[in-house]
């Protein structure tokens, strides 16, 4: 008898090798799906950054102030770059999500505070995304009382019963439609010299409405959920410090994509709507920006892009939020768990979707206004999260030799201070306005 034996093992789990699962993406799918299959989390975070909040805020910015505030775009780009890079670095070096690190380092009280801030910011974002869904589908004559509950239930069920990644890929590819803004800008043919000058000539106004717009622009460009998502992704992928450059390139690509698009949205809305007396009150108004490229189909094109981006973000936001809260408190998480196994995770995930959808259904609320308010909130809360992030990224116990260099700290703290100042000035000038000092 000859025997070739291995170690005992009662039951082996069905083998699931990378090659068994991935061929679906690598071989059978071509074109956009294959391309998206190799995208990194940075680019996904960037792409998801131009969602309902972004489109609405940038459109209003262009329509109401023309090119006069375009100069904040380079600043927000730098800020987004800095924040995404730090998220990638922290994920790669510590191997932990931001929620994990906050809890490890700051203890229960600060974690509780940070999570409340995150819940408020992301709850508001969730509302904005459902407002985006409602707005997009109202253009296509679907009333929001039908569309919003349906989409909410659909997102919930798709992620729970199918796969988050399927949802992510489908809507990501839909959101690419928003590239139409770039074409539209060229067709509209603004004075590019003027655009260039506007980029580098800052003008400051203490008008509360202008300050609010600036805060909303910051809030929508550098949204907390984006870097929470990015850091968890990087940590979970097991990207090590040696692959940091790859992760950074990915994050830079994401940041540049989303902000290039942002600039074009402002340019094209400025060219088509600014000075025409149109203020953006509904999604149809915003859709006019695509008339130069799509003519009578502008509204449909806009609706498709807005819908895709909003659904994508409406999926990512509740997941990222529940995941972060649960990881920082040590509660069971995972979408395939039964409600009784991961009650907090499933409860939060469900609640964020239900609240997001329910607020949009309150009769009489203007959708664009709702989206803008949620972006103000994100902008106001941003410095709080940045504070935690900067403290952690400079902690050598966590980051070893990968802490921020001095120049980066100066820049990052400077920008954080600037955002905080902006918020304070906005509050001060609002109060002054109420008191009738203006």
């Amino acid at each position, binding site marked *: *008898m*000859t*025997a*070739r*034996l*291995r*170690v*005992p*093992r*009662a*039951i*082996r*789990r*069905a*083998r*699931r*090798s*990378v*090659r*068994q*699962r*991935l061929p679906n*993406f690598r071989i059978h799918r071509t074109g956009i799906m294959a391309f998206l*299959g*190799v*995208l990194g*989390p940075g680019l*996904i975070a960037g792409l998801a950054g131009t969602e309902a909040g972004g489109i609405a805020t940038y459109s209003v910015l262009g329509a109401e102030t023309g090119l006069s505030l375009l100069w904040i775009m380079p600043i927000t780009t730098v800020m987004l770059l800095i924040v995404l890079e730090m998220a990638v670095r922290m994920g790669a070096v*510590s*191997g*932990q*999500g931001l929620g*994990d690190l906050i*809890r*490890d*380092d700051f*203890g*229960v*009280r600060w*974690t*509780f505070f940070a999570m409340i801030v995150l819940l408020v910011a992301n709850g508001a974002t969730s509302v904005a995304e459902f407002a985006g869904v409602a707005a997009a589908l109202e253009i296509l004559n679907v009333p929001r009382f039908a569309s919003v509950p349906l989409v909410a239930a659909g997102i919930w069920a798709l992620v729970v019963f*199918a796969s988050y*990644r399927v949802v992510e890929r489908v809507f990501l590819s839909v959101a690419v439609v928003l590239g139409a803004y770039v074409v539209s800008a060229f067709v509209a043919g603004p004075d590019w010299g003027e655009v260039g000058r506007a980029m580098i000539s800052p003008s400051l106004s203490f008008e509360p409405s202008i300050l609010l717009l600036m805060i909303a622009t910051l809030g929508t460009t550098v949204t907390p959920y984006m870097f929470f998502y990015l850091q*968890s*992704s990087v*940590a*979970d*992928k*097991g990207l090590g410090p040696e692959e940091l450059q790859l992760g950074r390139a990915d994050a830079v690509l994401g940041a540049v994509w989303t902000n290039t698009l942002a600039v074009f949205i402002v340019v094209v809305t400025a060219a088509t709507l600014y000075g025409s007396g149109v203020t953006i009150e509904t999604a149809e108004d915003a859709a006019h920006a695509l008339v130069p490229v799509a003519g009578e189909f502008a509204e449909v094109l806009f609706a498709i892009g807005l819908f895709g981006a909003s659904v994508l973000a409406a999926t990512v936001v509740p997941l*990222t939020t529940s*995941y972060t809260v649960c990881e*920082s*408190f*040590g509660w*069971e*998480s995972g*979408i*395939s768990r039964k409600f009784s196994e991961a009650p907090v995770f499933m409860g939060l995930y469900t609640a964020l979707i239900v609240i997001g959808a329910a607020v949009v259904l309150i009769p009489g609320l203007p959708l664009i206004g709702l989206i803008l308010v949620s972006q103000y909130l994100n902008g106001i809360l941003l410095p709080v999260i940045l504070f935690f992030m900067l403290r952690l990224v400079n902690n050598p*116990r*966590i980051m070893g030799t990968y802490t921020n260099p001095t120049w980066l700290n100066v820049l990052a703290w400077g920008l954080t201070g600037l955002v905080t100042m902006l918020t304070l000035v906005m509050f001060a000038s609002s109060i002054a306005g109420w008191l009738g000092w203006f």
Partner: protein
Amino acid sequence: MLFLSQLVGRPVRDRDGGAFGKVRDLIVALGEEYPPVTGVVVRVAGSRDIFLPWSDVEAIDTSGARLHTSSIDITSFRQRPDEIRLWLNLLDKQIVDVEDRKIVRVNDIQLAPVDGRLRLVAVDVGLAGILRRLGLSGPGERLARVLGIEAENYIQWEDVDPVESSVSSLKLRIPHQALATLHPADVAHIVEQLAPRDRAGILAALDDERAADVFEELDADDQVDLLEALTPERAADILEEMGPDEAADLMADLSDERQEELLGLMQPEEASDVRELLAYGEETAGGLMTTDYITVRLEETAQEVIDQLRELHPDADHVYYLYVCDADETLVGTITLRGLIVAPPETPVREFMRPEPISVQLDLDAEQVGAAIARYNLLALPVVDEDGRMRGIVTVDDALERALGEGWRKRLPEVFEPVDER
């Protein structure tokens, strides 16, 4: 019950009742079932921390600590390597709850006098600990009761296995004993919940054989990540202990250079098995099969075979069918465990074996292999080359996955990880 959060921040008084600092941390010595408190870290004026040995402490409770002495010698105490600081190293950190087999966070730490010493007895991982630290114990727990939520959840220290994390400065000497008692599938579940860099630490605590079992329970992508985190020597040791088919599947996902490096470090016999399996196309019988099987000779008797089985101690997967080969390894028959046991002890194999066994060729399409196993209702199917020589077996679990196809796998819900493709 005394909790760490109720002690930290309380005043430390000397024998005469004069407060000279605040409790900042407690130090315990690991190793015993309930680690005894061996010292106190006191924050004194000027934001300086000093260490006091436990022998200086007369009493400690929620109102603070009282010392025997009035003179403090701050040089006489050093934190020893087997000691940890509870607040700094354990609180808020992740631990493995061995009993419930999951990762949880330490919300508070419970201390109690055992055998005349204050000891660490349990960690609080429940809502009660969070509420206590937020200063919301009263209203929070009432609310939890109204909502029907179990706020209290303690894990005895003996059921705790600390996670060695890059964040905690804890470099533990605890050899993860508790983990070694778990089923490999449970260890794998725990490993999956950990941050990638914490995973290797858990694995370091297991011997090669157990580590191999854990590996086989992991997702392919986690396998690759984990393997890359190990030293090549350790990785090769673990691969040797894995089934050749599992090892080959795992190595197929590595880069060519890495494959060669690991194969070079493995025992020649195991390495050549894996090499052989790597050469077959994935969607063929050769790609599905394992080279672990038992062959017997025609002239051996039933009793001889049983004796040798007893000695080999084979795995359940391999004991049900034995394959009868002639001198040049050509497959000529099979015997079943039942056939072997009911045969009179002195009967040679050739008399009770089932001749003309069902077998498949190395290059047969994987789906048809699955179909064959299903049709003939087999637990394993032998694979032969063109000359009829035995090369391996495909077991039912591997084959059925193919036969049932994508649809079966799709019905399994996917766990959410906030990642793109894994």
